[in-house]
């Protein structure tokens, strides 16, 4: 039966064709109406990201076309070729066809070769690093905190940003970059693998211990004033999800002001040697050297804190009361340096001192 040529399309074919046409139209409508935007990456914020976005759009167009064609074929076959009670004899036993096999080998090969070539071109653009970028930043990702060292043209450090996340209320924190200028970031880790990832840069690069990775980007000048969310993208332990950072795009003038303020802050004379009770506390291998401290009630006190872990691993000594409310919040200290933390008077009671970066580092502070 199926061997004889059909004069008119069978009713099944009409139904199947209709369903396929509706589905194709639906997919088309989704993308024409803008609902399909959710399947595109967020708006590119750097010139490199715009390049990647252009590439993504091409890959996506091919992917969508192949998806529509093949799914349409499947749906058509499923609806059209159901076995009916009238089908007593076998359908034509087609074993294959070398011509079509060659066609669907050659055409996909051509497509993927094309995609490979444009990907390669884009890669050379996105991956390029220049010898003399406008700005150099050395990003260090330690468990579980980012820090950003600003370098001069010769590569020596001029200031360190120890607060990785931008705080809307105080305006503090974050890695500031001048929009429209090329920024070269070098990446190092003192412990495990992390990854520098900013979604709107459409880019990430692993931070591999023992290996310095390097990449470059230029934030679009029109993005000045924007704050971009960044996050560690490679599992790095229990604090992985808290390894956030911000990239702040500033106009070049604002950036200069920002960097000067950071330098001033870094060179500020350390807090005067505190009067009253001074405790000492140090940390090594992500452990405080003591689990219990004691201070008098209602009197200011200080902790002379030494971070003996390697550079890149940051710690601090914050205090929370028995209800969990943080009553003292200190800035972190990088590995290999020390600080004098001064605390306001606390009423008598039992408190917990802890490191805001490492949940395992806690101790009891008795105030009496």
């Amino acid at each position: 039966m199926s061997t004889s040529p059909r004069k008119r399309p069978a009713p099944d074919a009409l139904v199947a064709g209709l369903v396929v046409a509706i589905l194709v139209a639906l997919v088309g409508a989704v993308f024409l109406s803008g609902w399909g935007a959710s399947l595109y990456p967020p708006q590119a914020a750097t010139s490199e990201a715009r390049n990647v976005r252009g590439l993504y759009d091409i890959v996506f167009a091919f992917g969508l076309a192949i998806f529509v064609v093949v799914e349409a074929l499947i749906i058509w076959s499923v609806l059209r070729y159901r076995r009916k009670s009238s089908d007593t004899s076998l359908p034509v036993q087609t074993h294959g066809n070398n011509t079509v096999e060659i066609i669907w080998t050659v055409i996909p090969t051509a497509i993927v070769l094309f995609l490979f070539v444009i990907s390669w071109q884009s890669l050379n653009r996105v991956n390029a690093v220049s010898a003399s970028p406008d700005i150099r930043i050395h990003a260090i990702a330690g468990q579980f905190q980012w820090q950003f060292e600003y370098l001069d043209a010769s590569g020596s450090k001029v200031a360190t940003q120890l607060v990785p996340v931008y705080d809307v209320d105080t305006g503090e924190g974050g890695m500031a970059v001048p929009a429209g200028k090329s920024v070269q970031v070098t990446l190092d880790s003192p412990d495990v693998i992390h990854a520098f990832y900013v979604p709107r840069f459409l880019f990430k690069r692993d931070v591999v211990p023992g290996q310095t990775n390097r990449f470059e980007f230029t934030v679009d000048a029109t993005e000045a004033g924007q704050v971009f969310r960044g996050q560690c993208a490679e599992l790095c332990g229990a604090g992985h999800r808290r390894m956030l950072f911000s990239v702040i795009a500033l106009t070049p003038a604002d950036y200069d002001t920002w960097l000067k303020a950071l330098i001033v802050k870094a060179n500020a004379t350390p807090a005067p040697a505190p009067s009253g009770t001074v405790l000492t506390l140090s940390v090594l291998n992500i452990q405080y050297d003591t689990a219990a401290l004691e201070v008098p009630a209602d009197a200011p006190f200080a902790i002379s804190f030494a971070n003996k872990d390697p550079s890149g691993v940051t710690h601090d000594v914050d205090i929370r009361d028995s209800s969990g409310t943080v009553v003292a919040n200190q800035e972190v200290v990088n590995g290999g340096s020390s600080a004098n933390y001064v605390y306001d008077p606390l009423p008598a009671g039992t408190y917990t001192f802890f490191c805001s970066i490492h949940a395992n580092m806690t101790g009891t502070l008795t105030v009496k």
Partner: protein
Amino acid sequence: MATHALTPAASTYSRGRLYEWLTTTDHKKIGIMYVINSFVFFLIGGILALVVRTELAQPGLQFLADEHVYNEMFTMHATIMIFVFVIPMLAGLGNYIVPLMIGAPDMAFPRINALSLWMLPLAGILLISSFFTGGTAAAGWTSYPPLSLDGPLKSPGSGQDLWIVSLILIGTSSILGSINFLVTIFKMRAPGMTLFRMPIMVWTVLVTSVLVLMATPVITSALVMLFIDRNYGGHFFDPFGGGSAILYQNIFWFYSHPAVYVMILPAMGVISEVLPVFSRKPLFGYKAFIFATAGIGALGFSVWAHHMFTTGSVFLPFFSLLTFLIAVPTGVKMFNWVFTLFRGQLTFSTPLVFAIGFLTMFLIGGINGAFSASVPVDFALHDTYWVVAHIHYVLFGGSVFGIFAGLYYWFPKMFGRMLDEGLGKLHFVLMFIGFNLTFFPMHQLGLEGMPRRIADYAADAGWNDLNLLATVGGFTIAVSILPFIWNVFISLRNGKIAGDDPWEGNTLEWATSSPPPPYNFDHLPEIRSERPVFDARHGRTGH
């Protein structure tokens, strides 16, 4: 076709059915035990997935104690699903069906076959036992050092060691299994069963076995080195002691990329058996399909570094090109499958429904994988939920749908009774909907920048609704398993008697009784094509 089971004369006394099953070397019983063991771990892995999805349903940490427990959950979910569910499940289906399909009485080394089987529950129990001995591995199923090394904030404790030992055991089981498959396929085929008359399922198991044989020992070496670093002061992967963190990734992926094909090729084999039978046509392009399978296997060894594009230490264009090229043989297969349906006479029994589910979902998994072959695009997508979506479209939409197609297809052969069609289709519909609800939104989450393996996300990141949707989908998948279990339970007792050949099959397993007797056949039909049972039913006129 008349067949009669021959009872072995040797069994003059009986030690009970349990003893018989525990000591059997019969490939069919071993295959069924593989399947049962894998299914139990599928349920355990599924529960862990539900824990992960429950935690992610809303921003904040509500359900689990802390991030470390969360890391344990997804690490164990992936480890169990990959190593103790998908790989052994497909090995089990192969174990049951390959000797039948080539007309052999058993596997070449029946006792080694039993050894391969019994290593698996042992390994699985070792893996699970780490929950009760101070915490499991928590460095992800990839266990990249330095995070997986010993040390504060890394992976102290025995969980990671148990993980290593368990994986080495599973690897050894796989290697022995692959040797067994290869010798069986090369040496034990029935007269007339030439290589190019073997069912596609057998071909995929053949290629898979080569991949396992060549790749699994390499990950064993990586695991051994990791164990030495952790326990005997070694310096292979410790970047601060003269080692290299990236070295592990290279060795690990040299295995684990071929492992992806180990997990999908036999499922493709199942689909290639199911589609022709239920469309009453031969597989379109039988030889092209075999060459495509071999091509995927060969390319599979040269693309491992596409998992490492963002490490900054691999030669990007080479691995990008080869990764793109893998799309070609995969596309050939897809078109061959679709053209097998085309102009057929389709009967929508549950196996075919799952097979069509496979086609539609695996297509998405293939396309969204091609995005990551493009290195700059991968820079954006790597280690985000996009990748989570991709692997689930391949391993769940592909492998798991293929596994269920196979279970529905061969259940009548295994147990002599049919599964209920209504419950089977309910299972499919729930699973299909749940699957897409869970994993399609992950594309968008990944594009918007949600990294994988995070226990929590900012409430203002805009990811709340999609995560909630994925969690609802996850529970839908869990519900979909219930009709399947119920179906098996009632059908084993009351299912319709299947008879030798309920589906009008093509391949030799349908030429013997259901379930087949020990040593499988008392006689075989003439083998003159890749469809001997079809030939016996219709004569050669159909050709």
